[in-house]
Structure formats: structure tokens, C-alpha cells
């Protein structure tokens, strides 16, 4: 046997690692948009996670005496009051916005989770098995697309009732199409990859191939689309409220706050402005993050 000397991979030549701070700075300089997105998303996630501790007031504590109190740092007695003002039933707007992060993110995350699971499974099946299954699933997707979202929402709500979870379900059941199409497309091209043939050649069952080889390789696209859909869902929740199909008004959802206070824009600007800013920043954050992820994983991804 000829001697097989160990080949050097570039990684083996070690170089002194720059300091952590320096690496972080470098990262920020290289991905300003991604970092901005991450910060915004982290902010809203922490607001959602730690709302109890951040919010100065009970977000559902209504009091007509403080209705539409304008933002101020302190009242006459020097006691701190509503720092972003109070809403139409006298609740502290700041606390509601903090708690609202929870609701908005919940709608985003769980809505995406549902659509992701359904869409990924159907997309995998359609893409991998092709033929009539593919045709069938894609036709169902066509039908779903042609079905007006609002009517769909009303139908679901009259069958299942209303509430935040129903909205999540509605979004999930509507947006699976996006995932399914994306995954299907990816799987179709992935299927022709040599390592998939290889997986078959080494005796892999269909299930193993999908689980071990296909799924992990579509994960990045799923992640990217998921992030973008979170942003979209947060906005859709607001639109549903605008159309009268939103959540119960005691629930502090940004969309609800924004939609229900749109007529106060000129008289009590803070009621709509601050939830609006919260939505904008969070949505922007998720979009930037998604953009960055896509750029990182696959800059040519058609999203």
C-alpha cells in the first residue's frame, strides 16, 4: 500500500483568534442590517418574556378617570404616571405595549409553526413523490390561494369561535401554501442532488432519506421564510382587527390597539402612534433578520 499521508486542510493551520470584542465588532460592521434586525427582534422577545417585570402597570387595569391621559413622566404630585399615555379605557399604554409583544409574537410564532408544519410536510410529499400527489397538493394550494382570506377567517371563526388561538389557526391554515411551494421547489431540485442518490445507494429507505438528507437541507429556507412570515402575521393580526375579526379588546395586541385607535390619531395621537411604532420596529426587525439569514444561507433564494 502506498503511504497515505495526512493531508492538510486549511483549518489545521491555526492562527491566533482575535479577541471576542473584536470579532463582535467585525460582525456588526459586516452585517449592519442583520445586527439591527437581531437587536429589534431580541428587544421584542425580551419584552414578551419579561413583561411582568418591565410593565409598570397591569395592562388590563381599566379606569375611566385616566382615559386618554397624555404621555407624561410625572403628575402634579410628582408621582410617575403613564409614560406613553393611557388608552381609551384608561390603561397604561406602555404596559400594554410591553404585554402586546407577547401577543404579537405568539401570533407570529405559533401561526408560523402551524403553517410551517403543514406546509413542510405537504411540500416534502409533493416534491419528493411527485406525480399525482404533487398535482393534488398543488391543486389544493391553488384552491387555498383562490379562497379569500377574510371569508376563510369568517368561516373558521364561525365554526371554531373567536379568540387569539383561532386567529393563529386561521393564519396557519392559510399560509401553509407558501411553505409548501417553497419546500416543494427545493425538494424537486434537491432530489436530483448526488448525495440523495448516494443515500439511496447505501440502502436508505424513503423515510430516512427525507428525514436525514432532505429535511435538514431545506431547513434554512424554512427558517428564512418563517422569519418573514412572523413579520407578516403580526401585520395580519392588525388587519384582521381592522376588519372586525380581531381578538378580544382586553387582550393587549398591537394590531388591536392600532386598529381600534385609528380614529384618535388627531386627538390622542399616542394611542395609535406607539403601538404603530412597536409593530413597525418588530416587523422591520424580523424582516431584516430574515433578509440576513437568507443572504447568509442562500443569497439567490427566491423569496
Amino acid at each position, binding site marked *: 500500500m502506498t503511504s497515505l499521508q495526512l493531508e492538510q486542510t486549511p483549518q489545521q493551520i491555526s492562527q491566533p483568534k482575535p479577541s471576542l470584542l473584536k470579532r463582535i465588532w467585525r460582525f456588526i460592521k459586516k452585517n449592519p442590517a442583520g445586527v439591527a434586525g437581531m437587536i429589534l427582534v431580541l428587544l421584542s422577545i425580551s419584552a414578551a418574556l419579561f413583561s411582568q417585570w418591565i410593565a409598570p402597570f397591569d395592562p388590563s387595569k*381599566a379606569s*375611566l378617570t385616566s*382615559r386618554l391621559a397624555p404621555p407624561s413622566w410625572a403628575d402634579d404630585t410628582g408621582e410617575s404616571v403613564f409614560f406613553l399615555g393611557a388608552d*381609551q379605557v384608561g390603561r397604561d399604554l406602555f404596559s400594554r405595549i410591553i404585554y402586546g409583544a407577547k401577543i404579537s409574537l405568539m401570533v407570529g410564532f405559533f401561526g408560523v409553526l402551524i403553517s410551517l408544519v403543514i406546509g413542510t410536510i405537504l411540500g416534502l410529499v409533493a416534491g419528493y413523490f411527485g406525480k399525482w400527489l404533487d398535482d393534488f397538493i398543488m391543486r389544493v394550494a391553488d384552491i387555498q390561494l383562490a379562497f379569500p382570506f377574510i371569508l376563510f377567517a369568517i368561516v373558521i371563526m364561525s365554526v371554531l369561535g*373567536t379568540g387569539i388561538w383561532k386567529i393563529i389557526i386561521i393564519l396557519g391554515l392559510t399560509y401553509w401554501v407558501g411553505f409548501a411551494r417553497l419546500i416543494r421547489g427545493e425538494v424537486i431540485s434537491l432530489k436530483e442532488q448526488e448525495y440523495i442518490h448516494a443515500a439511496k445507494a447505501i440502502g436508505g429507505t424513503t423515510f430516512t432519506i427525507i428525514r436525514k438528507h432532505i429535511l435538514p437541507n431545506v431547513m434554512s429556507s424554512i427558517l428564512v421564510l418563517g422569519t418573514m412570515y412572523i413579520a407578516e402575521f403580526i401585520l395580519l393580526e392588525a388587519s384582521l382587527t381592522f376588519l372586525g375579526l*380581531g381578538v378580544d379588546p*382586553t387582550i393587549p395586541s398591537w394590531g388591536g390597539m392600532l386598529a381600534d385607535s385609528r380614529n384618535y390619531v388627531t386627538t*390622542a*395621537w399616542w394611542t395609535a402612534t406607539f403601538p404603530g411604532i412597536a409593530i413597525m420596529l418588530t416587523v422591520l426587525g424580523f424582516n431584516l433578520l430574515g433578509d440576513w439569514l437568507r443572504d447568509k444561507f442562500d443569497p439567490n433564494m427566491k423569496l
Partner: protein
Amino acid sequence: SGGGKEKASTDSSKGSEENPVKDRGNEIVIGVSGDPQNWDPIDTFLLDWSTVATSVFEGLVDRTIDLELQPGLAESWEYLDDKTLQFKLRQGVTFHNGEPFNAEAVKFTFDRLLGAEGQKGPQYSNYTSIESVEVVDEFTINMKLNTPDPVLLTKLAGYGAVIVPPKYVAEKGDEHFNNNPVGTGPFKMTSYKRDQEIVLEKNPDYWKEGLPKLDKVVYKIIPEASTRLAELQTGKIDIMKRVEVSQAETVKETGFLELQEVGTPTAFSLRFDVAKKPFDSKEVRQAINYAVDKEAIINEILGGYGKPISTFQSELSFGNNPDLEPYPYDPEKAKELLKKAGVKEGTAVDLFIPGNDGNFKEIAQAVSFYLEEVGIKVNINTADSTTLTSDLIPNAKAGHMYRQGWGGWTLDFDNTAYLMYYEGEQWNPSFKNEKVEELLEKQRASVDPEERKAIFKELTELLYDLAPELNLYSAVDIYAVNKRVQNFQPPHEDRMRLEEVTVK
């Protein structure tokens, strides 16, 4: 009433106080929120219809802006007997298309309303007490009734009984008539762009001397309130219907605008599903009525644009009992009653409200806040408003409490009370009281106002005690009007009257 607290101060654009409307001439533009889609009076029951069509069509009987009955196309009427009503018709009136108004037209109108065509629409059922219309001479008709109807005259002032031109309808057909209505009113419709605008022009041959004063009225359909207000602020419209409470302040602060308010027959209540625990108990229902500070709600959330009510009707309604005071705000009493009824602290109840009424959401939350104070936890559910009225309420799926608003278009408690309290009616999923039903039937059998008044007094007292709903308020409509418009009087029940309106 009126004038909310001036708390919601603003720094919004007080910018140009100059009236943006400069050269519109002798015409006005009105921003309304909805398009009735169909101008045929027998096919509609929408307030949006009446806002416009009141200027186009007229009935035998008319109602003044203050809701008094007065002669319309009929100069006078009398009961020949209990079941025959004779009308003397006005002479020299013509329809917008030149067709003469006469007994034939009246007969045609009612035959149509009561015939096959009318039966497809929602108006028919209001007029089933009319057996037939007989022509006596060219300007006299007899209306034969099959049963005495105490509110018939009021109904004849209603939408379905306006007189339509027989030849025109016969020749052009119903579909054409739907889109090109012709009546005898002060204005004629010259253009209709669905969901966009309606143009009315002066009817030069109008039978009231010197009226109308305007040459032209344009209605623009603008569903979104904030857009409507923007149009008003920029002078694109002169009158804005349906100003939201939250917008009132802005209007007041704009120099060239004027805010006008008017009480309406529409009452808003949270109705209880009395079949559901704990609202099967009268004490509990009363307790809820005590627990909520309706005055505070009216003053704070509605900015004063609402009137307290004691039963499910407004002060405009025949049958309203002015002696009854709304349940006072008395949380202690409420707690006591609840305790007596054995309702545990923290009992949760479901409240259903329509999701598209921002203002009412605030009210619901205030109610929930008050009820929480007495130990009842309210889960507010929002539903698509149509689902709520057409599905959830009729099928008793609307939780323990649900919002209902009712206008009683006849301005007579009969309409409301019968539909709300008579067993088996569409919007009465669970309430049943024999005494109430007895009284309801009794008042229906009579045409004597005094007698009916007495019955209603008894009925209202009974209902007050039974408390089948938490009566909140009767609505006050707010209109915003450009100051160039003169003599505009906001209508109680959406039926805008514009004959006397002029511009500066």
C-alpha cells in the same frame, strides 16, 4: 347633552382655518358610510337607503324631521271603520319622469309591495295588515285592512310604502328601477355610481312651493370614518354622516366646521341569555344593572353623545316610560344581590360584541371593569357583526351576554318588544314571560294610543323589574357640517331632509 370632557387635548393641525370650500355653487356634498345597493323601496331595509331616498321618494304619510306624522302625498285620511282607511290624495303632483301621481299609482305601489315582487323583499312583512287598496276616484283610495294595526300610519311613512311610478316600473322593469329610482320627492336621482356616488338634482316641479332650495346634492360613499373626516377637512364634502365620538374633538377644533348631534331611536343594551346560569336569576340580572355606571360610560367613553335609557328603547319611542329611572350605579347593592343569588366571587361570564365597532369595544371593557368590581369576571369575545346577529344570537351561541342595538324604526315599542321578548322570535333565543306576551298581544289589538300607552307603562315596568338586559344608552348621532351649509337639521333616524337647506 353633548360635549365630552376636554381632556383629549390636541396639537393637531389647526393649520388653515380658512374654509376650503370656495366655489361649489348652490350644491352640497354629503359623505355617507354605506351604499344600499338597491333603490327599490320594497327591496331594502337599510338606513343607508333612507338617508338618500327620503329626498327622492315620498309616502302617503310623512314624518317631519321631529318625527311628527303629517300629510305627505295624501292630504288627509280617516278611518271609515276599524278596517278601512280612506286617503285623499294630493293633486297636481308628478313623478320625476313626468308621470302623474294619482290613485292608480298608489294602488300599483301597494299591489306591488304585497304581491310576488314585494314578497321577495324585507318590506312586505311590515304591511301584511293591509288587505288591499281600492281606487275610489282619481284622488281617493280606500285601504282595506285584515286586522287593526295600531302603527299602520307610522308604517305608511316608512320605506316600503313610498309611492312609485307605475308606468315607469312596468316599462323599464325592476332591475332598471333598482338603479334608477323615480319618485315624487324634492330631488331626483340623476346619477348613481355604485359604491361611489349618488347625484341628486333639484326637482323643479316639486309640489312644495319654493322647495327645494339647493340645485344639487351629491352623496359620496366613504366607508372609513377617518377618510370621511379627511374629506370633510379638505372640503371635499360639506356634511359628514357618522362622525365617531373620537373624531368629535377634531371637528370642534376646526373653525369652518360645526358639530351637530341628534338623538336616535337606537338603543344599545347587553342582553342576557336568561337560559344560562347565573342569568336565569332576576337578582343577578338586576345586580348587573346596578353594578355598571352607565352615566360614566356615556360621559367618558361616548363623550356625552348618548342618552341614558331604562328599557330597551329610546326616549323617541312610543311606549317609552319617562317615569322609570335607569338603574342607579350602586355596586354595594349589586354585590348584595349577587350574594343573595349565590353567585360566587370570580364567576366568569362570556360577553359577545361585534368586532368592528371600536367605540363599543371600549364600552364593553368598561362594563367588564365594573363587573369585575362586583366579582364577576367578563370574557369579552368579538365576533364578525353579521355572524353575531345572524347566527350567534338567534342560536343562543352568543354567551351569557351579547350586545344588541335596536332602532325600532316605527318608533313604537311594539316593534322592539315583540321581537325581543316574544317567544320564538328570531332574536329572542331564551326569554319567556307569559305576562309580557299577554301585554304584547293586548297592545297589538288596539288602535287607541292612550290605551296602548297604558299597556306599555305596565309592560315597561315589568321589563324593568325582570331586567332581561343591561340597558346602556340610546345613541346620539353626530354630524359634522361645513359652516357654509345653512338650515341643516340632523335627522333622528338617518332620513336626511334637505329641502330647506341652503348654502352661504
